[in-house]
């Protein structure tokens, strides 16, 4: 018998297919059906699949989710987001033009994927067919079959966009058990520069499943800084995958904060394709309650003199589980590659768990490659010192956790966002992601 989740998606697809944008395009119709078939055949990954060893999704197959219908009213944006100049808002997996803002002088080309699905020329068709066809595991299939929207963003050659673009992924939570999917493509042409701030949050505590797959391509000499702040609701499941391709001398800087959600998988799959391409990827998982976060980073060095630095910090309290897998891969011939990774973790409760897998795959000798991983707890002496200076236990722990994370948290670009992030985390003091909820 077919699992409820698979059956549910099959039924929903049957009902809603004709209303999906681009249904009139035969190629797209076929592609969606093929990918849905492939998804139903493979099912969600289980424990025996190496990449999902610590985050098996088989159990999810017993639940069912409905696809969103109609357009939901977007909840009001929090004040710091309200004030930003460039923002693209997606609600329940659909572009929300009324909440979005992108002035014509932004020097960015943007189109919602749904629009391109309906109406495209041959060149655009090639681009989106590639986008929808990429990837080959269950998550890629599911997302390609059911994503009806997303973003297509392009920064033309040589342009440098000064104001960051905020991408807001929002679940309206107007009803329980919804599933939404988005797929996007961000292209930086030669020498272009862009800053992106991604926000994931939602308007309630209902159960929800979402998948977001984005491809990001940096042409030669392009520079991208991307910050993600993920603060989904306590019953949200988020499966996100970002594939990044960096050409010669391109520079990438990612800071990913995973703080919310019940079950979150965030993948950063990076390929350094051109000489001297550079990737700097850092992240934090700050988990409480029964949260489970699985952060995956992969850096593939294909060319000479490419370099990468990966730093992740995990803090697991209560019954939470922080999982990290970081793979550094150096291809044959990638002389002069330099690649480093560190995964440091604080395990703060007897019921919590930390699993970390730093992997090196080195196929060339002229390289510098190193990784390190630690799992430990707060230094009792430092804690004692702070207590002896009159800090409460809670405050002392908050200070030490804040210090542990500071190496990553100082990377957040704008102070007002850093503050807002702290407030979203329910902190009543300025230390980012430090303390207990009050």
């Amino acid at each position, binding site marked *: 018998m077919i699992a409820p989740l698979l059956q549910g998606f099959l039924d929903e697809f049957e009902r809603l297919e004709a209303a999906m944008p681009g249904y009139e395009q035969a190629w797209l119709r076929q592609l969606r059906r093929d990918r849905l078939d492939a998804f139903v055949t493979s099912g969600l990954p289980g424990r025996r699949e190496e990449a999902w060893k610590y985050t098996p999704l088989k159990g999810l197959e017993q639940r069912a989710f409905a696809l969103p219908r109609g357009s939901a009213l977007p909840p009001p944006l929090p004040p710091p987001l309200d004030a930003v100049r460039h923002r693209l808002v997606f609600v329940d997996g659909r572009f929300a033009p009324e909440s979005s803002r992108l002035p014509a002088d932004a020097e960015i080309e943007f189109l919602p994927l749904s629009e391109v699905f309906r109406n495209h020329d041959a060149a655009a068709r090639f681009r989106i067919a590639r986008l929808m066809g990429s990837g080959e595991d269950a998550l890629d299939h599911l997302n390609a079959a059911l994503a009806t929207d997303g973003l297509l963003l392009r920064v033309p050659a040589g342009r440098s966009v000064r104001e960051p673009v905020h991408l807001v992924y929002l679940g309206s939570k107007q009803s329980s058990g919804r599933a939404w999917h988005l797929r996007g493509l961000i292209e930086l042409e030669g020498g272009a520069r862009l800053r992106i701030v991604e926000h994931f949050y939602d308007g309630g505590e209902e159960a929800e499943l979402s998948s977001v797959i984005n491809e990001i391509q940096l042409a030669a000499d392009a520079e991208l800084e991307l910050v993600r702040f993920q603060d989904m609701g306590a019953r949200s499941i988020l499966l996100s995958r970002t594939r990044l391709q960096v050409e010669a001398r391109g520079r990438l800087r990612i800071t990913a904060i995973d703080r919310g959600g019940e079950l979150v998988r965030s993948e950063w799959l990076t390929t350094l394709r051109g000489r001297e391409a550079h990737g700097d990827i850092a992240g934090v998982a700050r988990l409480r309650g029964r949260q489970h976060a699985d952060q995956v980073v992969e850096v593939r060095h294909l060319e000479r003199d490419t370099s990468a630095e990966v730093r992740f910090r995990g803090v697991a309290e209560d019954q939470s589980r922080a999982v990290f897998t970081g793979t550094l891969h150096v291809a*044959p011939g990638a002389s002069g590659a330099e690649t480093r990774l560190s995964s440091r973790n604080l395990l703060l409760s007897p019921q919590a768990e930390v699993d970390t897998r730093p992997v090196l795959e080195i*196929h060339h000798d002229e390289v510098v490659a190193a990784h390190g991983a630690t799992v430990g707890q707060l230094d009792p002496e430092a804690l004692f010192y702070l207590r002896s200076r009159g800090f409460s236990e809670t405050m002392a722990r908050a200070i030490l956790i804040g210090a542990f994370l500071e190496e990553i948290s100082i990377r957040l670009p704008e102070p007002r966002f850093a503050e807002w992030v702290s407030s979203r985390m329910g902190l009543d003091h300025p230390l980012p992601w430090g303390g207990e909820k009050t």
Partner: protein
Amino acid sequence: MSNREIHDRLARRYEHGFETAIETDIVPPGLDESVIRLISEKKEEPEWLTEWRLKAYRHWLSMEEPRWAKLRIEPIDYQAISYYAAPQQKKRPRSLEEVDPKLLQTFERLGVPLHERARLAGVAVDAVFDSVSVATTFKEELAAAGVIFCSFSEAVREHPELVRKYLGTVVPYTDNFFAALNSAVFSDGSFVYVPKGVRCPLELSTYFRINARDTGQFERTLIICEEGAYVSYLEGCTAPMRDENQLHAAVVELIALDEAEIKYSTVQNWYPGDEEGRGGIYNFVTKRGDCRGRRSRISWTQVETGSAITWKYPSCILRGEESSGEFHSVALTHHRQQADTGTKMIHIGKRTRSKIVSKGISAGHGQNTYRGLVRVLPTAEGARNHTQCDSLLIGSHCGAHTFPYIEVRNPTAIVEHEATTSRISEEQLFYCRSRGIDEENAVALIVDGFCRQVFKELPMEFAIEAKKLLELSLEGAVG
């Protein structure tokens, strides 16, 4: 150096590649229940052991070959292997004098001290030729101390109660595909029992030799150290040069009770195949130590230079309070050799400690993978682990990979892992050469320095052998 010379040196590289012409009692290839009964019968085994083998065989039939390792393995035809080969002897030798002189010569050529001169080395040796143990030295001396050191078959005959009590308690026959196969068809191996409070007066050593064609070697080793006892055990292995692959699937079980200590050292030099990757041994081994008692210690040291494919993870189950496990490894892959090796440290008891030092060297087209698991269970209050694994790459076609798995479920545990990858740099070589050391020797020197941390864990004779082996194995790697 001319091409011819290089060729000659490479061809000489595997010194133990000769074959001994000796009459062999060999069971025809193929595996079914009757073969297992036949092996059991030949070895005059009790009924319970035959049944145990059959249970393992039936379980094996239900299993699939594992595929998760980072290895390229030609399919193995389990029906083409002969599961039992023994040098033919009229009757069981009572002393060394009765052993076939040809066999003794073989071990002589291998440099295994079976004779009196071994006394000087202070090593008691059990020699396993194909599937059976041919000679064990210094039995009387050991017996005086109360230590039992004999072949596994002998232990089954003489000490069935001990074998029955401990066999399969560390590696059950259900454990994995190759352990199940071994449990069904194992032919011989060594058995060591050190009673309470005894410090074994000699280093114990087993020498394994695969000689016959189309055979697999499936030995089984069981070492038990009672309260407060200590033993140091060494094993070495070689095989003739052949173009086809031969399977070696051994199981080693170590049991350490309260305050006991077992030191297990391996210098593995099975035939690695030629430069093109033809032939060589598939070394698929399950080794596991169980630190059952409080403050017990198990330490694995391995130098892996041979085998076409090495696939083994000597592990420690740290059950007893304050027990500790160590793993020291040098693994070298040259030409087309592949190795996927490492360890598992399972922390169960309070304040258990483990230390892992792994040194991987890849040259030619060799692929070398460290794969290790450190698991801290909620009961392991105050557990501590430190892992260091370094890789050295020689040449631009080889690969070095590191797959550590760290799973921590106790907030008082401290686990640290670090890994680096480097190569022999031009600067290092230039420095040595400017001091008048030729390239070959310079490489040997640098590699020796890289491995020092592991070599110092080996008993002296083995450390020298290991160093020599590494130098031989690396000939032709640079230049």
